[in-house]
């Protein structure tokens, strides 16, 4: 990875739809063999960014080089170098497994000498041996996803874009899918993947947190966890969690508070001092805290502390920006998803 020329270079990329800024000045670089994760609430601009990198949407301004080619000027040559899996399953349900593979092999002009080997490889990879003659529409979701991946990489592209590839897929299939992603990365493929599953984000070499079209943090999962939080993280288990949250949001020394499962996570200036202070603060308000301790932040903590979810919970108290709220409509879903993941 080190010293190798980046395969994807993005500089000041902007995409506007009318007044709405979907992608706001994004810059990033990705190298061969890197698994590059896009993390962010729904509507944050992840898919829009990926679609621009695939040449499916024209950037409003800025520059994106994929495999050294400008996506705005040479989209067709870019497409020969990428594999793309859209958010929605988009193979032909009325074609057989083998027919979909042959079709996409044709679209990517896979050389005849390579064809059989590549198709066999894709069938094997997707675990579809013996099911080549089944109609694609009859396959279970996990198989469909792996077949879609197989179709997208038949031409051995150096860069692969996967837009929420594992949404709606069972946990075992997700695991299998991530093994495939890792195998591709090991072969030197740059893999871009968007997700809102926190456990999946941990599998990435590099993460970019996107919120309202902007990159709010980036780095390896470890770096993000260590650096992105200003202060220490406390876990508070208590009764009346809702009331406690309300009270603690204005408490001295507490910069942030959020509900995680049936407990609270607090971001505080100093853990040692806050442990006793918070206990007293709660007791004074008739709330019994059964457990308060310092914990290591998870990616979800980072995610929540850096994205708009958290800001909205605080009634935009810090009034950090005055942009309109239209892209917040999806955020409650993202919260729900986060909580569900935690509960599992």
């Amino acid at each position, binding site marked *: 990875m080190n010293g190798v020329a980046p395969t994807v270079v993005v500089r000041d990329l902007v995409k506007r*739809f009318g007044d709405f800024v979907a992608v706001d000045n994004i810059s990033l670089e990705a190298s061969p063999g890197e698994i590059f994760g896009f993390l962010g609430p729904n509507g944050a601009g992840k898919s829009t960014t990926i*679609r621009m990198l*695939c*040449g*499916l*949407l*024209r950037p409003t301004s800025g520059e994106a080089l994929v495999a050294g080619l400008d996506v705005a000027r040479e*989209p*067709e*040559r870019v*497409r*020969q170098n*990428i594999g*793309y*899996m*859209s958010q*929605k*399953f*988009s*193979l*032909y*349900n*009325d*074609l057989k497994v083998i*027919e979909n593979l*042959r*079709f*996409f*092999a*044709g*679209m*990517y*002009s896979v050389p005849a000498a390579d064809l059989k080997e590549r198709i066999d490889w894709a069938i094997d990879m997707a675990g579809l041996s013996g099911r080549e003659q089944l109609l694609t529409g009859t396959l279970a979701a996990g198989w469909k996803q792996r077949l*879609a991946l197989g*179709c*997208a990489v038949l031409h051995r592209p150096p860069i692969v874009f996967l837009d929420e590839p594992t949404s709606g897929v069972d946990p075992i299939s997700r695991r299998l899918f991530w093994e495939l992603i890792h195998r591709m990365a090991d072969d030197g493929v740059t893999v871009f993947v968007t997700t809102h599953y926190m456990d999946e984000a941990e599998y990435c070499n590099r993460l970019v947190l996107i919120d309202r079209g902007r990159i709010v943090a980036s780095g390896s999962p470890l770096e993000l966890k260590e650096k992105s939080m200003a202060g220490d993280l406390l876990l508070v288990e208590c009764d009346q969690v809702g009331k406690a949250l309300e009270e603690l949001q204005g408490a001295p020394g507490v910069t942030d508070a959020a509900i995680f499962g049936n407990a609270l996570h607090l971001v505080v200036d100093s853990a040692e001092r806050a442990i006793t202070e918070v206990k007293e603060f709660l007791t004074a308000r008739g709330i019994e805290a059964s457990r308060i301790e310092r914990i290591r932040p998870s990616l979800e903590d980072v995610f929540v502390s850096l994205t708009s979810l958290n800001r909205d919970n605080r009634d935009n108290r810090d009034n950090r920006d005055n942009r309109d709220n239209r892209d917040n409509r999806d955020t409650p879903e993202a919260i729900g998803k986060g909580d569900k993941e935690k509960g599992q």
Partner: protein
Amino acid sequence: MMNWNRLCAMARKEMIQIRRDARSIGIVIAMPIVMMFAFGYGVSFDTKHIPVYVYDQEKSQQSQDFVKRFQASVYFNVVRTVTSYPELVRAIDKGDCQIGLVVPPDFSKKLRSGQKVSVQAIFDGTDSNSASLGMSYTEAVAQAHSQQLQLEWLQGRGQGQPRLPLSVDARTWFNENLESMVTIVPGVVAMVMAVVGTFLTSLTVAREWERGTMEQLISTPVTPLEIMLGKLAPYVMIGLADTSLCAVMGVWWFGVPFRGHIWVFLLSTLLFLVVVLSLGYFFSVVAKTQLAASQISLIATFLPAFLLSGFVYPIDQMPTVVRGITHVVPARYYMAILRNVFLKGSSVVTMWQDFVGLAIFAALLGLAATRVFRKKLA
């Protein structure tokens, strides 16, 4: 810039999808057959067997002879005889007959005395076309009967065979029995192809957008031209097969002669297919939903092809403005070519104007179709 691999893969995929989709098969096979029957039988401009009620007030040998003349003609069908005016009026009101024939009580008496006899004929004018045809047929029958009577009268007075000074020896070419079906059926073939051809391709692109497969497709290096040609190629084959099916039905089932050269037929059909398939593709790209695209294509092809192509109304009898408009209805040229190929056996050279018209539209719409599709999501 065109990649043969991609074009073939595209065409093969379309073919598989058509084969696997029951609705497509229905449109491809059933629609032409149904339309051929519906128009072949449903649209007839012939007026035969007009139902006639007779109120014979005399009931003499002479009056019966006169009525029998109507019965003998293929144009009339004397349904029944009534005995009063109210009965006759009721029959016309109810639509049981279109003509009410009233023979006066002094029919034979006046004839014998050499006076002029007036026979009353009442026509149902709600369908003016059949009424006016019925009127002229009735006059012709009455004319023929008076000639016969005159002849008998002259012979009775010992005079020889009278000479009629002038007669027209009519012979109709191309449609010897003047059956409207013969002119209609080639027109129906053109109608069917205008509607079916456009309808078929109007679904192709919209279907990919609706099913979400388009996003994957345009992320591959396939070019818009390859998408268009690959999608249209199977339909050109299907269109040729459909047109041939219609033509065979026209000849074998409807008994329409085919006097021209098969190559003239195929060449004009190919040009027309380029027109209608491109048009359907164009609608499909623009509309983005199958429902909208198919509705637009039905409206945009059916009405002009029905009203402005010369199928129902002869183009030379249209008002000047309307006649001008027919020049931008491609079906007009194909309709003219098909009629001439079927009935006259005309060659490309004699029909060059129609071929040029068709070729211009094929070029324009084909070009528009290659330009309309953009490999972008928004």
